[in-house]
């Protein structure tokens, strides 16, 4: 597990930090006056709050770069327009077939409802 004296001390440091955090958590969760304060719910976790704030304010830190614009165009605008043009082509072909009389009268409408 340990690869030398450097990582042993690193492991010890990490374990110390983790134990400190655990102690703090145990202190807060086992607080006997928690009921008296009237505030229920989950304990306040600053790391979780930072994460939620990050997700909530993601758009505020958006910078329009050429790469981002290209990504947006390729992934969003192009599929919408492309799929739309495919649908349009399909409908126009069907319209042309109807107008030139290639579709039988019985086949002109959808049959499955």
């Amino acid at each position: 597990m340990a690869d030398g004296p450097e990582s042993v001390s690193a492991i010890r440091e990490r374990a110390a930090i983790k134990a400190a955090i655990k102690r703090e958590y145990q202190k807060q969760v086992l607080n006997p006056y928690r009921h008296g304060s009237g505030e229920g719910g989950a304990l306040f976790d600053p790391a979780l709050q930072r994460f939620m704030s990050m997700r909530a304010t993601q758009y505020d830190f958006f910078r329009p770069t050429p790469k981002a614009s290209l990504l947006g165009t390729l992934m969003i605008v192009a599929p919408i327009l492309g799929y739309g043009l495919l649908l349009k082509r399909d409908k126009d072909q069907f319209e042309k077939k109807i107008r030139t009389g290639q579709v039988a009268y019985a086949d002109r409408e959808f049959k499955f409802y």
Partner: protein
Amino acid sequence: MLKFILPLILLMKFNKEWKVSQVGLFFLSFLISVNCYHNFFLFNSGFSLGMDYISYIMILLSVWIVSLILISSQKIKNLNNFSSSFISTNIFLLLFLMLTFSSMDYLMFYISFEASLIPTLILILGWGYQPERIQAGIYMLFYTLAFSLPLLVSLLIYYFLTGSLVISLGVPLEGENYLYKFWYMSTVLAFLVKLPMFMFHLWLPKAHVEAPIAGSMILAGVLLKLGGYGLIRVLIMFQEMNKSFCWFWVSLGIVGGVYISLMCMRQVDMKSLIAYSSVVHMSLVLCGIMIFSLWGLAGSVILMVGHGLCSSGLFCLANMVYERTGSRSLMVNKGLLAFMPSMGLWWFLLSVSNMASPPSLNLMGEIMLILTVLSWSKISILGISLLSFFSAAYTLYMYSLSQHGIFYNSLYSCCSGKVSEYLSLFLHWLPLNAMIMNSTLLMI
């Protein structure tokens, strides 16, 4: 119509007594639902207001949802957080919604459509929880206003050209040049932003997340349907022009819906997830309306009603969890089956209705809409199948992440569920799952 609107105005006098207002709203919804055996094209008409098949079910939905809002917002009553102003705001909102859905005149429709934004803004700003609600209110207001000002201009031009703005006498416009295209776009975009459509949906997650439970319920339950209802009414004018643009709206609905459902699976905030799922359902509704088939229209109305009940119920559930744990994050609210077991029933019932499982109205709406879009073009099968699949995927994600597993360790114990909460959820679920038995009430 006045037999419903006058009691509603009189109910404002009782805004200091919560229970009277609550019972009064339920009684009003009973009065409206008595008309369920309507057989005429237009009924309850008078004073330029009237009910149609579609507007009847929308009015019933709005009154029902506002009654359920008063049950779900008990916290405002208990803490006496300006409860009388709260009731007045909700009743004003309901009044404007009833006027919108029952108006027989485009201008009256437009005025009440815009007027319904103001009580919603007051609800978000006044009773919301975070400081971000200012930005959310601004987004909602300006998105809707910026796109609906061209709508006003186009309605006035329509009046100038045809001489009347009565909806029933709508003269279909005929013309193919670019000016007519511009006219069409400026009219239709207002409702597409309200619906909301994929590219213009940014206001929706913000407004839903920052709004209090009342705001979320009324937004998801009724205000989004204003967009759909407005589209149904306004496309009478643009029948010819719509055929040229139908491909674009259907593609936007399908591709946008797939993208948004993928976004849903990335959310950590419960309300944000439910808000994005609203966009998915409404994009399917958009496809159905734009295709102009009878089943498309009926399917979109049914899906609008089903979604209104289901999303509103899911927001109620998310709020119940938020009131207990203080967080909307799915990382904190996990394993809730161990924490609030009886609520798990309602999470399940409303989640499966959200993913369109029988016997919910969402199922019927989605079946009709899938058939409609498929009948319009067989190429749409790819997008529709992805949409349906991911819709089930993100709902399952939300349900299993919030309910299954070990619950969050530091959660303090709480009441499993008050009877008023169960009542509100039951009243959301019952019409959703029972109305499929007699769905001719909803269909055109």
